[in-house]
């Protein structure tokens, strides 16, 4: 499971908000910190807003504040807003015929076996994202800061 740029940006911004739940942060602040395009970030924040994870603050200056529960929102809750995680993505093109052949494995059979391995990796990644809450990740950040 390879995360797209927007997903990565969404995770970073949600964690910025979650680290300071009562505080209003501007999109410009986050964009600058992560050296991201403010235009991209604005789109990401709108998606996070529609999902109820951040709320746009009224009044001058704009900005957003966190609106979720850091102890219950998992990384997967954020990721699935930006990635299609439903379809089993093996990343392998399945071509050729499924019929058994005497002359060894068909292209389909080889690609199918590779797909099984890639799926295995995908399932582990998904379980990991599902089990890590924002609070747990913030604790990890704090531990790694020492």
């Amino acid at each position: 499971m390879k995360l797209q740029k927007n997903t990565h940006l969404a995770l970073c911004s949600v964690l910025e908000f979650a680290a300071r739940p009562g505080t209003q942060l501007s999109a410009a602040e986050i964009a600058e910190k992560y050296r991201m395009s403010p235009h991209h970030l604005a789109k990401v924040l709108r998606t996070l807003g529609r999902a109820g994870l951040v709320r746009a603050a009224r009044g001058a200056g704009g900005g957003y504040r966190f609106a979720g529960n850091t102890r219950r929102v998992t990384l997967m809750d954020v990721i699935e807003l930006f990635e299609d995680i439903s379809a089993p993505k093996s990343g392998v093109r399945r071509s050729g015929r499924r019929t058994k052949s005497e002359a060894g494995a068909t292209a389909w059979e080889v690609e199918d076996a590779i797909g099984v391995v890639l799926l295995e990796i995908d399932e582990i990644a998904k379980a990991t994202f599902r089990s890590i809450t924002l609070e747990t990740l913030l604790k990890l950040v704090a531990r790694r800061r020492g």
Partner: protein
Amino acid sequence: MISLKKSAAARRTPGATRIRGVQPGDLEQVVEIDAGITGLRKAAYWGEILRRYGGARQQRFFLVADRGGRIEGYVVGDVRDWEFGSPPCGWVFGVGVRPDARLSGIATQLLDAICDGFRRLGVSTVRTLLARDNPLVLSFFRSQGMMAAPFIPLEKNLD
């Protein structure tokens, strides 16, 4: 999103829980908690776990959370030496808390207590093995700072 509301019972009686070694009289309640989680009553299995892990055993721990005589949860584990070539480390292979007592820190207290026991035996790592499709237990252990271990569990059908 993982959702489980803090139960009323858990909110009413905070902090009165005592973590102690299991006693034979606790076993019925442990069997009941486990059956509530797994859907299977495994009285014989737990009898065997009590025999092997109960009492003051050097490397084995079977602890319960006692709130006013009611067993709210349990944890079982041991120190294993050189398993899979790894230096001695603590293993937790069972943890369970009554649904109406969850989210009040009981599993955290149980894990802290068993980890203290592991530390006293000189080990500095604790491990566990969890079902991939059980986000509840996975998020509990993750919240305690546990990360992926440098092992990959494998299996195959023996047919």
